[in-house]
């Protein structure tokens, strides 16, 4: 119960991405947000066919091209060069967001500043200073069958990111269905955080202590065991 070092024993971003990738469903259509969520594709399990969507109008893109091989008309929403898998397609922005809002994606994964226990998400700005930029985040949180978040469990100074109510400006209301953190996998159901998996090394009490709202337990809590080398 003691001995868990929050900063040293937590999962790295790559390990969180690996854990999220284990839930990718065969035959699914998935949008991975810019940055950290994009890493999930690298850990896609063998034997599962996943088609990736990017907001700027590509379905079925693959890995980044080798340096020097980029075609800058072929990029993703993060403006990184991509390649195409067989069966890819191009479409304009209105059709792309029809896929997003229209319920056609199986999964969207985003980063977060805060997630509230009712599924509210804050991930686009932390205050009123600087240049605001929203991109496709407010669209992506609507329509996908599952909206997941990948995030460190706590802020850099140890404060909770999973909270009773968001204090940062909202991206969407009641939209997140699952959170993959550096310590746990938590579902959002009926306005509550429900703990699904956690790191074996952290106790329930320690996990609750760094979570800003009550963690509910329904059935057995699974163990997150990340393979060596990730």
């Amino acid at each position, binding site marked *: 119960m003691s001995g868990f070092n929050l900063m040293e024993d937590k999962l790295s971003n790559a390990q969180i991405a690996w854990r999220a990738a284990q839930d990718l469903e065969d035959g699914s259509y998935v949008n991975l947000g810019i940055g950290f969520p994009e890493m999930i594709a690298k850990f896609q399990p063998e034997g599962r066919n996943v088609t990736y969507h990017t907001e700027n109008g590509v379905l079925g893109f693959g890995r980044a091209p080798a340096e020097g091989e980029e075609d800058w008309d072929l990029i993703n929403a993060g403006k990184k060069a991509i390649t195409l898998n067989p069966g890819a*397609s191009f479409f304009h922005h209105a059709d792309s967001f029809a896929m997003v*809002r229209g319920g056609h994606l199986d999964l969207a994964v985003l980063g977060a500043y805060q997630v509230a226990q009712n599924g509210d998400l804050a991930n686009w700005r932390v205050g009123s200073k600087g240049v605001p930029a929203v991109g496709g985040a407010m669209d992506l949180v609507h329509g996908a069958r599952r909206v997941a978040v990948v995030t460190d469990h706590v802020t850099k100074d140890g404060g909770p990111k999973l909270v009773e109510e968001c204090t940062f400006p909202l991206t969407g209301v009641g939209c997140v269905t699952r959170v993959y953190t550096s310590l746990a996998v938590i579902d959002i159901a009926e306005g509550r955080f429900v703990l699904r998996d956690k790191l074996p090394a952290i106790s329930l009490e320690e996990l609750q202590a760094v979570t800003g709202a009550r963690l509910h337990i329904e059935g057995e809590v699974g163990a997150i065991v990340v393979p060596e080398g990730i």
Partner: protein
Amino acid sequence: MTKVSPSVADAIADIPDGAQIMIGGFGGSGAPIELIHALIDRFRATGSPSNLTLINNNAGNGSIGIAAMIKAGMVGKMICSFPRSSNAEAFNEKYLAGEIALELVPQGTLAERIRAAGAGIPAFYTPTSFGTELAEGKPSEEFDGKMYVRERWLKADFALVKGHDGDEAGNLTYRLAGRNFNPLMAMAADRTIAQVSNLGAPGSIAPEAVITPGIFVDVVVEVSEPQQEEMLVRTGVIY
């Protein structure tokens, strides 16, 4: 996991009684005749699916396709813009006898309502039908000095569409003006079933040439020499 179905009969096997079904095509252009006839075959063999609501621009022609579904007694309601045609006796007789319901929708509004369903837009404003009896009971509002009617999205449980080239990822192209409602309906149904004239591996359609991306298509079945409704009607075929 594959989207490819071995036959039209398999492709439509799980459509239940009472389903709301979009059927692509404009008249015979782009109409998925083989999928429709497979539904009729199933109804004749099993009595199901019955009491269907069909969404199409028209209400069938001659004694094949949608007209044959209506004659067979499978259809409880049509949602369409133009049930009248030169060979529309199947619908006309049932309608005038009060045996089939009709929701009449202006053609552009029908297209936009279907597109809105596919795009997650629950309602929109259109100038079409303002001040007419087809706008009765609908909210209206002025924007920039012109009056508009509010219309709702139109969804379906199933869409039956006809593509030309298709691939195993569900990507579709369409032949000539056979495109019409097909790409919209593919977006707007919970489950979209496409018959295609040529089925290839993923990559067989150039990414720029895809009209309906595979994300909108659940089932693909190859019908390599599809029948053309207009030719069937002209040769007096009765299905």
